[in-house]
């Protein structure tokens, strides 16, 4: 059982790391600020949630699970809110008064 959980956790963490690397590639190479923000926010919340889930599977203890869930929820909430706020302040700056 724990070996199966270990393999599942490693797979989930690998998916999360790949998503983070895609986000980094997007932030590096996409043409405009809004498209870069788009690449960031998706991979941000999904990637870190996958990594935290995988770490909880590999670790398998309840106290570590609490810290990991708090971490993932905090980053997902703040990432979504910040993406919205940054995009709004960027767009309102571009508009002519």
């Amino acid at each position, binding site marked *: 059982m724990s070996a199966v959980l270990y393999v599942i956790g490693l797979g989930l*963490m690998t998916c999360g790391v790949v998503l*983070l690397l895609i986000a980094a590639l997007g932030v590096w190479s996409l043409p405009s600020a809004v498209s870069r923000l788009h690449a960031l926010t998706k991979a941000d919340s999904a990637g870190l949630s996958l990594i935290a889930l995988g770490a909880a599977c590999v670790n398998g203890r309840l106290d570590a699970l609490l*810290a990991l869930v708090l971490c993932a929820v905090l980053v997902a909430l703040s990432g979504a809110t910040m993406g919205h706020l*940054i995009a709004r302040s960027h767009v309102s700056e571009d508009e002519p008064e």
Partner: protein
Amino acid sequence: MILDLLALGTLVATLAALPRLILGPTAADRILAAQLAGTGTVATLIVLGTGEDTRGLFDTALVFAALSAVTGLAFVALRKARS
């Protein structure tokens, strides 16, 4: 071994945001690069904490997550106050 490689991957994702942080044409580019760097740091700490089986690194990751949330809020609030 696999976890070491994964930690290296998250570290690369963190450092890849640095050129955008320095060059970024607008302020929004800079703050989103800083946000990616914060998330990458949290991910690196979680992967390292799993690899080393250290509970304390998860708590450190939690602190970094809270701090990076405050960074973005301060950016938007200061910008609104200045304009």
